[in-house]
């Protein structure tokens, strides 16, 4: 992932780890930038399929 606010590059695990305190973590599962906490939706089967179809490998800019 690349954070669109601060340009931080982070992995899905890092994005999950930094928001373990959120009471909705199980429900919402958004990823959060380890530096500025800006949120991105987690990759799902559908988004991965879309990414492959559109020729992109990950959330990037």
């Amino acid at each position, binding site marked *: 992932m690349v954070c*669109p*606010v*601060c*340009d*931080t*590059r*982070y*992995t899905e695990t*890092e994005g999950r780890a930094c*928001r373990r*305190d*959120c*009471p*909705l973590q199980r*429900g*919402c*599962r*958004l990823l*959060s*930038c*380890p*530096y*500025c*906490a*800006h*949120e*991105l*939706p*987690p*990759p*799902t089967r*559908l*988004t991965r399929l*879309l*990414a492959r179809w*559109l*020729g*992109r490998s990950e*959330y*990037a*800019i």
Partner: protein
Amino acid sequence: MQPSTATRRADLRMVEGGAARDEPLSPPTPRRWRIALVGNPNVGKSVIFGALTGAYATVSNYPGTTVEVTRAAARSDATVEVVDTPGVNSLTPQSEDEQVTRDILLSGVDLVVQVADAKNLARALILSSELADAGIPFVMALNMMDEAADRGLRIDAGRLSAELGVPVIPTVAISGLGLRDLADAVPRAAVSRCRMHYSVVVDRALLRIERLLAGHSVSQRWLALMCLAGAETMRSWMLEHVVATARATIEATRHDLQTEMGAHIGYELHRQRVRAAEQLARRVTTVLHDEPVTNAPTTPETIIGVMALAACLALFSADMGVIPSTAIVWIRAAGWFVLVLAAMVAQGSATMRVALGRWASRRRSGPLVLFVVLYVLYQFVGVFAAGTAVNFLEKTVFGQYITPIIVGGIDTLAQAVAPSGAAAAVFQLARDLVVGPYGLVTVALTYALAIILPIVTAFFLAFSVLEDSGYLPRLAVIVNRVFRAMGLNGKAVLPMVLGLGCDTMATLTARIMETRKERVLVTLLLALGVPCSAQLGVILGFFGSLPLWAPLVWGGVVLGVLFAVGWLAARLLPGERSDLILELPPMRRPQLSNIVIKTVGRLQWYLREAVPIFVLGTLVLFLADATGALSRIVRAAEPAVVGMLNLPPKAAEAFLVGFFRRDYGSAGIYDLFQHGLLTPVQAVVALITITLFVPCVANFFIIVKERGVRTALAMSAFIFPFAFVVGGAVNIALRSMGLQ
């Protein structure tokens, strides 16, 4: 992996001294070696920590703080402890995170692995100079070399190592490159000889303080620098370690220097350090190709920018009814043509994007760019999505097909089964649960899928364009200026801007604030007046159905309340302000494929999270209605809802469900307006009240967790009546102006 001989010898001397005095009968337990990973935020420390240590790490809060520190044994030697410290921009602390890192270093570490971001070397070298002043041996991992190369930066690691006097190892931690070399270099860590040379007056003051601090195991120069910089957190350390007369002399020295320099000492020291770091970074860096970031906007770009602004103002005037009706069609056509043209130029021209980036973050032009962004957002989300898509989904798809089909199915089933007595009553209850006034289909699914989904889809699309373009950090710069005018800490900007995504996460981000009072203040402002993305989307969608004065009144009141509360609180909470340090990425061309993927991802998240909560909220309403509790709540709320706000009693239900999710409450008000139960004035009053109203349940619980039950209850006790008082005042003001 063992520390250098020099470091080991220094430490052995300390152990031997103690042993000679005490003559212990049993051999002393060998002290565990400690290596600290230090670096700016987000430079890949955690990845390097993982590479240097084994699988078993301990994560615990640093004593007395909420900051987490990770420790583990080194992979190559179990007697060596590796500590992953929080990311810092300076060792003179301005936040709890920075204080924890400073305290870990103060408590005594044997050596440091400094992780540096190669593409932002100057920022890392500021820390290096502080480590040099602290006299702590270190080795530098020059990380993210691949990203630096992508930006056309080539760093001469050998020359940097020679200048610093410490090993410098180029790494790409995320792909494991250079990590073995780094582990091998750790034993060669050394104290850097690259010490800062401050001005004569500063050096004189430093020497004077250093003499007073002689005898402490930590570098006297570093301690003296922190005392001079006025680090608040040094006060407790000095009380414990420095005698009263010396403390008084240090304070007098600091005061004299402050008078002589005429500027804040901490700021001046930092400025000198930044200048030296930038000079060193320039000496070791070769720029292979220049980014066009430094180019000033040329005449054609300025003309296009001015035309886009003029087009937006013309469209806005047309919406306000200022322009004669005969010219409106032409004005609209020309306005949108110019805006689309400007967007196409920005999409294709790098220099136009650079110019746009400059305008977006400048003092005078920034608010004008924000006006254009908000206007286009309002037209896309409010007028297009909420006007067209919601009408189609709610009135056609749900109104003509889904609800009638389900009602027909249930009625057919009722006729076939023909229940009687108690069974009939149960059947009627089940029917109401599905399609009654508080039914899962008629309320939960209609709100979630027919009203909010099309609006948030448009909002998420627009938001993805904004975030991929690089506009959001520039918005933070503009907000920072407002915060400075309020007298608030610059660091408060980040949580406040992030609150537009999710207030719950933003409340967690308030940890970066320096003092507890500041954290409480930011949490209060977030809970009070920053709508989350879903609520903001619904409110923007709502504005499409209201006169143009409605968004102006809503925005003016909410921003005015935030400004007033913030200004007042800043007066009540005196203290030094800190600066906002945010690296501005370049303005980019948003990629359609990326926008589509992110919007789909966000919609999936929304459907997974919001729909169950909508169902839960509707169930609560249904049960409250079935047991008669709802009518009692509505009656109890009547003095406030009807008396103060002049709203129909049914609006109380929207406030009730607003506690589950803020967008649910806003959608309830929207639904009332669509059914003709609210006038525009009532709608604006209700929207202002629900924006300022108590936070959603998730946000409330995170406030309890972060700030404690008492603070959370106190905040709610303030916000709840305050929101109604402001709503009531707006109601009186709008009516006295003759608006309906």
